[in-house]
């Protein structure tokens, strides 16, 4: 099946098997490997990307379901060569260790900030509760997302 998908602003047309998972399309067909696979059952969330701005787990979504839609992956977070505030904040607040859940966590965090520029700790924890992390105990991920929100509203490094 032919599908048209915009990935990080670039339109792609591809012929895919109907059963191809969106995560495999992103990783293998488009070649963007920052989106990961962790559990195969939509539980861990490391495959999360933004589909038209909304976080979606791509290991249980078919590529054909993304036809006509716009995806943002971790590779699309930077703006004009500058780190997105969420990226800068994850480094600053030590919001990552092995880095495997990080792209998804940052995308979920960035979507939250879009919607809620000043999220409380509870709101951050709820927003990322579909994403597992085995390294950090979430403490510094929560801190990083709140720091990014703060830096976004104060102008920080936002575009």
């Amino acid at each position, binding site marked *: 099946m032919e599908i048209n998908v915009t990935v990080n602003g670039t339109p792609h047309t591809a012929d895919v*098997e109907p*059963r*191809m998972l969106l995560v495999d399309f992103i*990783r293998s067909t488009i070649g*963007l*490997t*920052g*989106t*990961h*696979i*962790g*559990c*195969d*059952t939509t*539980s*861990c969330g*490391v495959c999360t990307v933004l589909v038209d701005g909304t976080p979606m787990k791509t290991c249980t979504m078919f590529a054909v379901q993304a036809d006509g839609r716009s995806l943002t*992956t*971790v*590779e699309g*977070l*930077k703006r004009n060569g500058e*780190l997105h505030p969420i*990226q800068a904040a*994850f*480094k*600053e607040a*030590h919001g*990552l*260790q*092995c*880095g*495997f*859940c*990080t*792209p998804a966590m*940052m995308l979920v965090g960035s979507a939250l900030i879009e919607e809620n520029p000043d999220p409380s700790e509870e709101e*951050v*924890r*709820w927003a*990322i*509760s*579909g*994403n*597992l*992390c*085995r*390294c*950090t*105990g*979430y*403490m*510094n*991920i*929560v801190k990083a997302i709140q720091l990014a929100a703060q830096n976004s509203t104060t102008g920080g490094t936002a575009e």
Partner: protein
Amino acid sequence: MTTTEHAPKTSPEVCGVGHSRRRVEDDRFIQGGGNYLDDIELSGMLHMAIVRSPLAHAEILSIDTSQAEAVDGVVAVVTGDLLAQYDLAWMPTLSGDTQAVLATDKVRFQGQEVAAVIATDPYVARDAAELVFVDYEPLPPIVNPQQGLAPDAPIIRTDKEGKTDNIAYTWESGDAQATEAAFARAARVVTLETHYPRSHPSPLETCGVIADVDPITSQATIYMTSQAPHAHRTVFALVAGLPEQNIRIISPDIGGGFGNKVPVYPGYVIATAASLVIGKPVKWIETRTGNLSSTGFARDYHMKGELALDADGRILGLRVDMTSDQGAFYADAQPTKFRAGLFHIVTGSYDYPAAHVSATGVYTNKAPGGVSYRCSFRVTEASYLIERLVQNAAYEIGMDPAEFRMLNFIRPDQFPYRSPTGFVYDSGDYETALRLAMDMVGYEDLRREQEEARREGRLMGIGIASFTEVVGAGPSKDYDILGLKMFDSAELRIHPTGKGILKLGVKTQGQGHETTFAQIVAEELGIPAADIKVVEGDTDNTPYGLGTYGSRSTPTAGAATSVVSRKLREKARKIAAHLLEASEEDLEWEVGKFFVRGSPESSVTIQDCVFAAYTNFPEGMEGGFEDVDYYDPPNMTFPFGSYIVVVDLDPDTGVWKVRRMIAVDDCGVRINPMIVEGQIHGGLTEGFAMSSMQWITYDEDGNCIGSNFMDYLIPTAWETPRFELGETVTPSPHHPIGAKGVGESATVGSPAAYVNAVIDALAHLGVRNIDMPLLPDRVWETIRSHSGAEGEG
């Protein structure tokens, strides 16, 4: 929140020990530039899928691969019989047992590897795996060690000639006679029987391999999710018979390890054999179900501990009898000499003369493993048992659990302290750490609140764990894996411009080695950490070492880094003397430069010395500025700490919530405090996971319950408690910079603190044990049975 501030000796620009340097590895991870195993694509690469046994115990009557082989895109189907032709159907485990690579005679656990399909596409490989038909004759399964020890139990390891029981090992430690004597004069004996349930490290990246054996040169490049690439190279040489110089293990970025990526798994061996035969690269990426149901489980210890007390509440002795559920193959990744890991650290933070531990490992029809899941070889099981026991002992004699610990702690003036099971604890100050934790939590107020709460019918509890770990394996006289001594290494090469590269035998999986080990060089040589690149995980380009697990990187490779830097500083001193036309004895070192004593204006920087090592070195000296150190630690290190958990418990539902979690850790000198705290946060979460929800069980037929993330529960940000950290610093006297290692302290120490808190909430009802995980229904059931008894009485 911390007791002591430690001013770093170096400037922020140099960024040596004590600076919370931001991590250099983050730059690639936050931009999607990580290079994990599955991100690697090689030209002409094939994909492998594994066919697994649906049964726990069954004879294999036949395997029909014809339909799978007929699928378009399938290149080969590998069975155990095929591997047997190359003598690869079995492989050694890291405990000196054997493990089937692909089953030939019978399957011994659900999820065991039975066949593998190699195809041009991963989807095709999985399709064809469904078409491999195996005819099984079911055998009765053994799903716990008690069944395995029954006299009429079916024998699981029929592959072992003459094997007539299911015992994997027996082992003991300590002095049985002295312990008997201690118990004979005890005023009171406190007993606890408890199970530390089966768990799994389950890093978010599963295991995987790309084996690339060049058909012309026979060079085998094996990309592998490996925490121990050098040891794995040697194992591959021994198992596959490949010449070791032709094997290169590359362990790329690892998406979490926690012990799961220490063993060699069948998938690695099958892919390598397939690549060897087919002549093309073969990739295998484990599914999550494959990961949870076949690779490296942890824990599963059934423990009985007894504490002998005198009339004043002093501990006289400890007796432990433990049975471990080993699964189908005894595959603990652990030092050879110690059959139950370092479980004999079970005597804990307390001073008493006698202890005895006896252990029996039993084969069952469950997945093999016994890996050190974020703990140094069974140390968390040990710490859990003793910390639960002392808490119960305090209840039995009517003493406050904190006071009981204070009474029995090893005192600071007793270090180095020889434990009754033979460890020599390097340093410690247990009382200070516990007092700090008590101050932070407001212990006395909480006890008063608890009394009031009980009067009002509310349930709240305060749980303490004052753990001592043993990490940093280890001194070569006692520690080896498969005969390989557990030293580790560092090779440091500074280029002419004063910037250089540090190569290590260990392998980071998120611990931040690229950042922290450069800080050690900065501390020792005064070269800015930013000028040092750290390289790990490529056996062709790093010196030999046993890898990263058991909190050993800082105690071993960290020490090696320090020592190699000091060796080069001595070379720099000679060069400085040459440049300054002074004698070496007249030179003083201060961070980054040598100066002539008494005339500080006459100085050369370390960078000057390095440049001269290539351009203007004294006669008779070898050029260049590089060295290597293989560090054999003189002793283990013994990190410790005191954790206090406060829980509120709903008697109507059995649900408990962590109100506060205080963690005071003493891991000696902290190289990068930010990273240390991050490690502690992670460990406290895994301890919470194990105490509250995360476990693997098997039903009576040997079906694995917990083979996916819908059954195997990992806490999300929503359930995970908030943590409050404190610190004391008692340097290790034998480590060059006084560090002890911290990656596992919190996983080791915290489970007992959470469980003790829940037990403490119910202690007045007479509750002394609930097995982990403390699921609400178990807690509720316990409350009901104890309240019922009271009501009826």
